[in-house]
């Protein structure tokens, strides 16, 4: 049932998170290795979002450990997580609609002109556009980097921009929260292919999803949370829908440490 996981890149050990009297995580474990897609599944309230927030630096855990490359790390803020090469694609994408794709890719991390102009705050739009075009073509995302605002793009293109932004800056881990939730069939196909291309770059991809078919298609492993604990680690190549659903709903308990 367990798949081989040689050296976890990012790992959560026995993480507890309480909000007042509510225990969102009760000793949850999680691990993802370089170059693999791990799907994090679970029913509503299972603790998926809380776990992702802890691993991306949005919230600190109440207790427990987060390890990167086997070393304990403290992710005090999203910026701290970013500095370690961890990026997140939020469900609402967090794009600036009235800016173009290249501007969104570099938002908050703009390239500046060299010399005095750069010190005065002038942007190097040319370099940013060509960099953006390179990332889009490498990941086969059909988006115009400049000239067109993100507002006018299709749902799949917007998702593509958000994923490319994360991948561009993440050299270790990318979290994706429900990346296909709002998409149609063909667009979902594109995004799943995009996830595979990201993985092939050696980046660890953590995918939160409710869609079992999508997960079975794209993930290498599936980790299932239930009531704030990991209840299953499944090898996506050999498991099936029934087994996944059983783990999510608690029809079969299986705790592995």
């Amino acid at each position: 049932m367990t798949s081989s996981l040689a050296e976890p890149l990012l790992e959560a050990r026995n993480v507890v998170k309480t909000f007042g009297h509510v225990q969102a995580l009760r000793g949850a474990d999680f691990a993802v290795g370089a170059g693999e897609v791990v799907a994090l599944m679970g029913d509503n309230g299972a603790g998926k979002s809380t776990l992702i927030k802890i691993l991306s630096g949005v919230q600190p855990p109440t207790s427990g450990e987060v390890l990167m490359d086997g070393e304990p790390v403290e992710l005090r803020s999203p910026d701290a997580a970013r500095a370690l090469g961890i990026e997140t694609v939020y469900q609402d994408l967090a794009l600036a609609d009235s800016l173009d794709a290249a501007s969104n890719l570099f938002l908050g991390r703009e390239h500046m002109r060299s010399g005095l102009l750069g010190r005065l705050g002038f942007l190097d739009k040319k370099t940013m556009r060509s960099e953006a075009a390179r990332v889009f073509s490498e990941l086969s995302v059909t988006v115009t980097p400049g000239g067109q605002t993100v507002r006018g793009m299709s749902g799949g293109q917007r998702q593509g921009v958000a994923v490319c932004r994360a991948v561009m800056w993440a050299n270790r881990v990318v979290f994706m929260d429900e990346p296909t939730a709002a998409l149609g069939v063909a667009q979902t196909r594109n995004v799943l292919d995009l996830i595979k291309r990201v993985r092939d770059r050696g980046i660890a991809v953590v995918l939160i999803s409710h869609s079992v078919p999508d997960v079975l298609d794209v993930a290498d492993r599936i980790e299932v949370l239930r009531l704030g604990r990991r209840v299953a680690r499944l090898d996506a190549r050999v498991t099936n829908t029934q087994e996944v659903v059983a783990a999510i709903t608690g029809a079969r308990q299986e705790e592995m440490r």
Partner: protein
Amino acid sequence: MSPSSAATVAPATGTESPRARLTSLLLRPSTVTFIILVVIVAVFATIAPVSFTSVSNTRAILTDASILLILSIAINFPMITAGIDLSTGSVLVFSGVMSVKVMQAFGGDGPGVAVLGGVVAVASGLGWGVLHGVLVAYGRIPAFIATLGTLGAALGLSYIITGGFDLQDVPSSVTSIGSQRLLGVPWLVVAAAIVAIVFGVLLQATRFGRHTYAIGASQEAARRASINVNVHLVKVYVIAGGLTGLAGFLSLARFATTTLAGHATDNLQAVTAVVLGGTSLFGGTGAIVGTVAGVFIPTVLQNGFVVTGVTPYWQQVAVGVVLIAAVYLDKIRRSRSV
């Protein structure tokens, strides 16, 4: 975002036809405004070819527009961040009052006094700007309410300081700025042109401008991109305040008095100009180029009606019609692009 858009997935964009690009350029709000402006100018130039297009009349139009242009550029900054500054007219008056009071206290006349007056006026505006920025960014008070409050407060303080009587004795070193020219161009126009270029470039070419648009498009997106939204918002309102203070000083230079009662509708004129120029009230868009066109439409109409002998009250009617038409065209454009 809707599942039904699945069919339009792959190459839809990328290679826009030149014709489509031209259409989108023509439908851009700032372009529409410029075309309307050109048409208005052409009509008046046809009706009154000599008097309307004369050098002195052109100079008069530019001078009339210059202070409103600076005010409009000022409020364009908060409007791009989906905020607003309604206090413009009052802060302008307050800055002028403070400027005259300090110059009087200092006494004398000469370039030094004029510089002092200018610095005091701008500093007064900056002060209100800091207050606006802090209230909006940290106090989480809607910009509409915060600046509605200071609209009353700044004018009230101006009346308290002056006792309700306009201060008249503006040093001649200041008023000469309002009457003299540089190579035939009035200094007021030179000042407005410099402000338009500097702040237009700031918006289009710098990181500061980029972040201003991003905050207007989505504060959440900006925050997640590690932009310090609160600090940036304060800067935006400080720019608006400082430019309004500058406009207050130029108003002194032009009218040689504090014009306490003369600026009640400044904010409405400025908002009209900015919206005419294509800035959305919902934030994220708007360029100084459009604002310039938006400022000149009411000014040219006013002047043109006087020159052609039409009752100038028609100006207000015409501006209202143009405003609604421009926003309606923008609405059509948006519904097409989405």
